[in-house]
């Protein structure tokens, strides 16, 4: 919050609010509504929901706390913010779990109606944080929201349970007042949402209005704040999008651009299930979804569908990825298109299933028996997941190869405004099926200029052929135990995959093209790295950034870029996996690893600090 002078409505460049309450308190809805209203106003936005662990914990307990963080800004932003400026805590558990993140001097709004002895006990608190001094250094706002809502909704005839379910809209109204936002977007949403139960729409409206008015009347706050629209946003139509949703839509788009029917074989797993769930709702696009008995059946069915002429897709997370390894080898061997999405989570093993991590990179590039090269790419933000999904489909179809797309828990559940592409911006890459028997007979393992083999769909007369996992003779595809043929085929497959780099651009450096330090990232560290580098550059620090979408093969031109920097810092949410790959590919350059393996994204401030330390050395 870079504060200015104005007395009444103070302008801020960027604000972070975190709504926190029990799983049943509707914090996700509240956060989404605030986000949407801010979007319509024209702020740039980033959000991060923080769900409780898998199983719903008892109400009022710490594991049951659900949070939603939104950052809205008048300038370009790339992360939902390191620390909230405002924390809304609906109960003691929500307070105690989140307070340590609040920036010092920040505002905390507490629902005192939920601070009985019993409530404190459920939150495992020996003393009441409202009185034991643990909120020192914050601006605390105590409101008995339970009571306020009961009063506001007296006479609606709703049960007291129904009344209490409107509490979140009271806090939303309060925040709308504080940040000077209009209510109309949410009012319209309530009408739509509760079209069949208008009395509930009305009740929530009353609660929101009561919260809004409370801001006005009670002088809780010294004044109101304003975050002006972001004027640097690109023109266009926007929507707010979560990473899993963007991936799903990108896969549908990718299949359409290839002219193929998409077939998703998948098995539920956190945090990837959202992609399966989204695609299961797109049946009118011809999407076939197959919820398999396990991850092995999922990928096998998907690869089978590719053999039959669909675009086979499979989505999963770490443990599921492990199970798919063998079938990936067959996809490499048979040279069929296949898109494999891995939404990474904390590992090893079951690990931290609801937390984020980037520790499956080496597995993606190297983790198969035999020489089994597969192109690998990674999405950097929720919206970028759309582009990456399309790109994965392109590579799979044009090169007749499995492709691995890495996402992670932070992208999957995070959201950001997405400028919708114009259809004309999306370049088609139609699959070219073999349709007729070529002169001299059909050769299933002949190759085109990209070294891709022809794709002949069962059902096509005259192209009957057999494929499989035993080494195939070059051209004919017949079983072959010939030593030279095996080496030739291994090399052709490797060359084909390396050849993908001919179709991808050299990524652009952010900042100066040369200097002391280049910060090199991949995947969801994008936001934190970009924010850190932009912040430092504003302060006059000469540091640049580069972000990789393609991890295997690496794009051309990196060597030349690296050569223009004294050293390269590689921040990763793992113990240094990309750094290892870079060292082996470019041993002539110096790569500094910077690890965080905490199931949590980097904070901008952590990176700023690290970069400063390096530059000062």
């Amino acid at each position, binding site marked *: 919050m870079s504060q200015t002078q104005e007395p009444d409505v103070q302008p801020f460049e960027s604000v972070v609010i975190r709504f926190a309450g029990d799983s049943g308190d509707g914090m996700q809805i509240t956060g989404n509504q605030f986000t949407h209203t801010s979007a319509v106003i024209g702020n740039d936005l980033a959000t991060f929901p923080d769900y409780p662990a898998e199983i719903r914990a008892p109400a009022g307990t710490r594991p049951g706390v659900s949070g939603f963080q939104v950052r809205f800004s008048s300038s370009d932003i790339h992360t939902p913010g390191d620390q909230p400026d405002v924390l809304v805590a609906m109960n003691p558990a929500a307070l105690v779990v989140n307070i340590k993140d609040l920036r010092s001097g920040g505002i905390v709004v507490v629902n005192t109606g939920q601070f009985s002895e019993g409530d404190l006990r459920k939150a495992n608190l020996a003393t009441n944080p409202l009185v034991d001094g643990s909120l020192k250094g914050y601006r605390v706002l105590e409101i008995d929201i339970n009571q306020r809502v009961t009063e506001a909704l007296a006479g609606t005839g709703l049960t007291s349970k129904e009344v209490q379910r409107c509490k979140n809209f009271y806090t939303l109204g309060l925040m709308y007042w504080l940040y000077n936002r209009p209510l109309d977007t949410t009012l319209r949403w309530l009408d739509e949402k509760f079209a069949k139960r208008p009395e509930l729409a009305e009740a929530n409206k009353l609660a929101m209005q009561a919260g809004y008015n409370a801001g006005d009347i009670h002088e809780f706050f010294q004044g109101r704040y304003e975050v002006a629209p972001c004027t640097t946003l690109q023109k266009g139509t926007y929507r707010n999008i979560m990473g899993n949703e963007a991936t799903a839509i990108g896969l549908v788009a990718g299949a359409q651009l290839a002219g193929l029917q998409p*077939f998703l074989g998948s098995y539920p797993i956190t945090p990837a299930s959202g992609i399966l769930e989204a695609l299961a709702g797109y049946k009118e696009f011809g999407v*076939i979804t*197959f919820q398999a*008995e396990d991850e092995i059946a999922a990928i096998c*069915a998907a690869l089978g569908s590719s053999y039959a002429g669909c675009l086979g897709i499979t989505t999963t997370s770490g443990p599921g990825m492990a199970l798919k390894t063998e079938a990936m080898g067959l996809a490499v061997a048979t040279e069929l298109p296949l898109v494999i999405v891995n939404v990474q989570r904390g590992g090893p093993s079951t690990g931290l299933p609801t937390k984020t991590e980037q520790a499956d990179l080496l597995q993606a590039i190297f983790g198969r028996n035999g020489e089994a090269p597969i192109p690998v790419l990674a999405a950097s933000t929720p919206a970028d997941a759309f582009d990456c999904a399309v790109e994965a489909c392109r590579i799979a179809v044009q090169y007749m190869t499995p492709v691995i797309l890495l996402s992670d828990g932070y992208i999957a559940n995070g959201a950001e405004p997405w400028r919708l592409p114009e259809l004309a911006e999306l370049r088609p890459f139609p699959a070219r099926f073999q349709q007729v028997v070529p002169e001299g007979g059909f050769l299933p393992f002949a190759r085109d200029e990209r070294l891709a083999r022809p794709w002949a769909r069962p059902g096509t007369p005259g192209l009957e052929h*057999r494929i499989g996992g035993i080494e195939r003779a070059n051209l004919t595809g017949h079983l072959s135990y010939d030593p030279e043929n095996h080496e030739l085929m291994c090399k052709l497959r490797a060359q084909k995959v390396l050849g993908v780099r001919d179709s991808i651009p050299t990524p652009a450096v952010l900042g100066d093209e040369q200097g002391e330090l280049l910060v090199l990232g991949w995947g969801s560290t994008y936001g934190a790295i970009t924010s850190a580098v932009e912040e430092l550059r504003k302060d006059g620090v000469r540091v640049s950034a580069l972000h990789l979408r393609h991890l295997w093969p690496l794009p051309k031109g990196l060597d030349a870029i690296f050569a223009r920097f004294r050293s390269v810092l590689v921040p990763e949410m793992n113990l240094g996996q990309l750094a290892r790959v870079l060292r082996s590919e470019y041993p002539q350059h110096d790569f500094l690893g910077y690890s965080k393996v905490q199931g949590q994204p980097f904070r901008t401030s952590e990176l700023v600090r690290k970069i400063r330390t390096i530059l000062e050395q």
Partner: protein
Amino acid sequence: MAQQATLSKKDFKSDQDVRWCPGCGDYAILNCVQGVMAQLGVPRHQLCFVSGIGCSSRFPYYMNTYGFHTIHGRATAFATGIKSANPELSVWVVTGDGDGLSIGGNHMAHILRRNVDVKILLFNNEIYGLTKGQYSPTSPQGKKTKTSPMGSVDRPFDPVSFALGCGATFVARTIDTHQKHMEQVLLAAAAHKGTAFVEIYQNCVIFNDGAFDTIAEKTVREDHTVDLRPGQPLVFGKEHDKGIRIESWEPRVCTAAQAETWRADLASPGAAFVMAQMDAHPELPRPIGIFRDVAAPTFDAGLHEQIQRARATRGSGSLEKLLHSGETWTVA
């Protein structure tokens, strides 16, 4: 269907040398399948053979149709993908007792449960052939093999009981050396709409020679097997003089006149299951033929029906509309 008259058995032979051991039961099955294909009236390019890994799983290479030799145990999963992607194909899975019931048991169970319209031929030789002679999940307890020098401790699966337990809609059994019978069973399997599970007793001359001799060998076959023919009495024996009837849940041998009439289409698969239990009784004949054959909606049809229905109610999906779904706003 137009090609029906023109195809003959040899049209289904591929140009690859058949590489099974001389005397292997797989040859007889290949021969019979090629003959049956010629009778189906399905053009070659609409046929797809899918297999896992094993001696039996080399089958697709020898069929001049589309074919996919996949990985060990997963043929049924691949077949589910292929059939779901293109329900017009006639999809046949060839698998072994190891491929289909050991590593592949789960996919087998799930394809049967889902009733995907795929025909499954399980070559049961009660041994792992390709890996040179270890016991399989159908090897009898006590079987001495390379990995069970003191006899196998495992109790075996009965493939027919297993399939019935999974809710299979078509379950049958036949014998490599009994070509006529196999032909009839395969034709019935082809005619069934849904998953058809066919266990085929297959002799592995090298690692388990004669495993089925006491029941399948031509001179004893008629006395030691009873053919389950829907609508026909359960009569067996060289003289057709013996029959099977059920007494307090146990099948017993009776005279031909007392034999029960076989029905494979009862609402309950209980009868078929009771029949399958005869396997455990060496003194009873081994049932072959059709244990079960009932109609049920298929998985692949269900998938595509939903797509049709979604399109009928929501219109064919437009990418433009998909991108713009949810709440949008405009920056001008």
